[in-house]
C-alpha cells in the first residue's frame, strides 16, 4: 500500500517567496531520504515553494477566482511530500517518526487510494469492449 507523507513546516505559511531551507537541514533530510531509498520504499518525493509564491484558485457557482499567495487565513501549509510503498499504516508512521523534523513541525500520513479500491460498477463502466481479432499470446 502507498502512503503520502505530507510535511507541514512551521512558519511556512508566511515564508518569503524565495525562502530556502538551510544547508544543514537539507543535508539531514538527504540522509533520511537516502534511508528511504535504500530500504526500497521510496516512490517519489518533492519539496514545494512557499505559498507566497503560489496561488489559490477557488470556485463559486462555476466561476473560478484566483488569489495570489500568501493566504492570510492559512495556519498550516504543505511544504513537501514523500510517497512511499509499505506494508502497513504502522510502517508508514514508523518511517514518519524517523524524519528529521524541527520543533512544532508536522508530518501528516495519508494512504493513497488504489485503483482496485473503486467499486465494481465504476470499473465495469470503464472496461473496454472486446475485440474478436485480439491475439491471445500477447498476455498481460
Amino acid at each position, binding site marked *: 500500500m502507498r502512503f503520502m507523507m505530507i510535511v507541514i513546516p512551521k512558519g511556512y505559511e508566511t515564508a518569503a517567496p524565495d525562502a530556502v531551507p538551510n544547508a544543514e537541514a537539507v543535508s539531514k533530510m538527504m540522509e533520511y531520504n537516502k534511508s528511504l531509498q535504500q530500504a526500497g520504499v521510496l516512490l517519489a518525493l518533492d519539496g514545494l515553494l512557499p505559498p507566497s509564491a503560489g496561488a489559490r484558485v477557488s470556485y463559486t457557482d462555476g466561476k473560478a477566482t484566483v488569489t495570489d499567495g500568501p493566504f492570510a487565513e492559512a495556519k498550516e501549509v504543505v511544504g513537501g511530500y514523500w510517497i512511499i510503498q509499505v506494508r502497513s499504516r504502522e510502517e508508514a508512521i514508523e518511517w514518519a517518526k524517523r524524519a528529521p523534523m524541527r520543533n512544532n513541525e508536522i508530518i501528516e500520513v495519508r494512504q493513497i487510494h488504489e485503483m482496485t479500491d473503486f467499486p465494481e460498477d465504476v470499473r465495469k463502466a470503464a*472496461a473496454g469492449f472486446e475485440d474478436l481479432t485480439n491475439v*491471445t499470446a*500477447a*498476455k498481460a
Partner: protein
Amino acid sequence: MSDIHRTIEAVWRIESTRLITGIARVIRDVGIAEELAQEALVAALEQWPEEGIPDNPAAWLMTAAKRRAIDQLRRGRMLELKHGEIARELELEQRRLGDALDQSLDQVIDDDVLRLIFIACHPVLAVEGCIALTLRLICGLTTAEIARAFLVPEKTLGQRIFRAKRTLAEAHVRFESPRGEELRRRVETVLSVVYLIFNEGYTATSGGEWMRAALSEEALRLGRMLAQLLPAEPEIHGLLALMELQASRAAARTGPDGAPVLLLEQNRSLWDYAQIQRGMAALERAQGLGGGAGNYAMQAAIAACHARARTASETDWERIVLLYDALLQIRPSPIVALNRAVAVGMAYPAAGLDAVDALANEPGLANYHLLPTVRGDLLIKLGRFAEARKELQRALGMTQNEAEQILLRKKLQMMDEKGF
C-alpha cells in the same frame, strides 16, 4: 493484534535486515545472526508492552542484538580454545572483531545488505531456498507469511529455511561480496530470484490472496534496493523497469467478474501512469549504462512499447518485432519466438501465420495451447474462419486452465454470433 504489536512489527520490518547484516558481519554465520536478531525481537515483544516503546526503537534492538552477539562470541571462543592452533587464530580475530564490534554494529554499511542478498541467493542453494531466505532475511517476512504466499504448509517452509541455512553453514559460505566475473554471475542469480518472487505474486493476483500480491511489491522493493546498492549494473535497472511496467497494469488485468483481461483488451485508463514513468526512467537508466541489449532490459523495452501506446491499435508492432528478434539472439526460446510471431501477425497477419507455422514442430510447444490459439486468431484475421474454428477447438482441448477455456469459448461463441 494490539497497536503496540503492530508497531513492533513495523519496526522489525524496517530494521531486521540491518540487524541481521550487522551481526552477520561479526559472527560470520547468517543463520546464527538471524537467530540473534530474532531473540532481540522477542525481548522487545516482552518488554515494550510493559515499559513502553523506547524513543529510539532501532537503537534498542541493535543494543539487544549486540549484547547477544558478544555473548555468542565469548561462548564461541570458550569452545574453540580446545582446538589449539585454530583457537589461537580465532582468538586473535575475535579480539580484533571485538574491538570493532561496537562500531560495526552501530553503523551498517550498505555493502552489508548487498552481501546478505548475495548469500540468500547463493548458488549452493536450491531456488526455493534462495526465495525463502531472501524473503525472510531481506524482506523481513515471517515463515508463516512466506508459507501462505507460496501456498505450502508452514512446516514445509520452515524446513526449507532450516535446510538453506544449514547448507550455507556447511559450505562455509563467506560473508563477503563477490567481485568481477563472479559478481556478474551472482547478480544474474539474484535477479532471477527477484523476478521469480515478482511473478509468483503477479500471476496469481486474481485469487484475492493479498499475501501473493504483496510478493510483487516485495520484489519491486528488492529491485529498488538493488538499484541503489549496485547503481552501475544495467540489468538491475532493466529488471526494475520490467517489473514496474508489468505491475503498472495490475488494476486492469482482471475484469469486474475476476476473469483475466488480456493486454490488448485492457482499459488503459486503469494503468498506473506514475509507475509507468518509474519503469521508463529505469529502462532509460539501463540503456544509458549500455545495458539496452540485456535480457531484462529488452523485455522491458517491449513492455514499454505497450505502455507508450494510448490505445491498443497505436502499438508499435514493428518495433516490438525488432525487439523480439534481438531477444531471440541473446535468449533463444520457443515462447519468445511465438510471442514474436504474434507481434508480426499484428502488423502482417499472413507473415505472422508463416512465423507460427515455422514453430509447428518445435518440441517445446507441442502441448502448448497458445500455439493453436495464436494460429486461430491469425486465421480469423485472414478470414479463414473454418480453419480458425478448428484451431481454437484444438486449443480448448489442450488447456486445463479454466480462465483460458472461458476466453476460448467466448471467441468461438463470438464467431457463431457473427456468422463466421
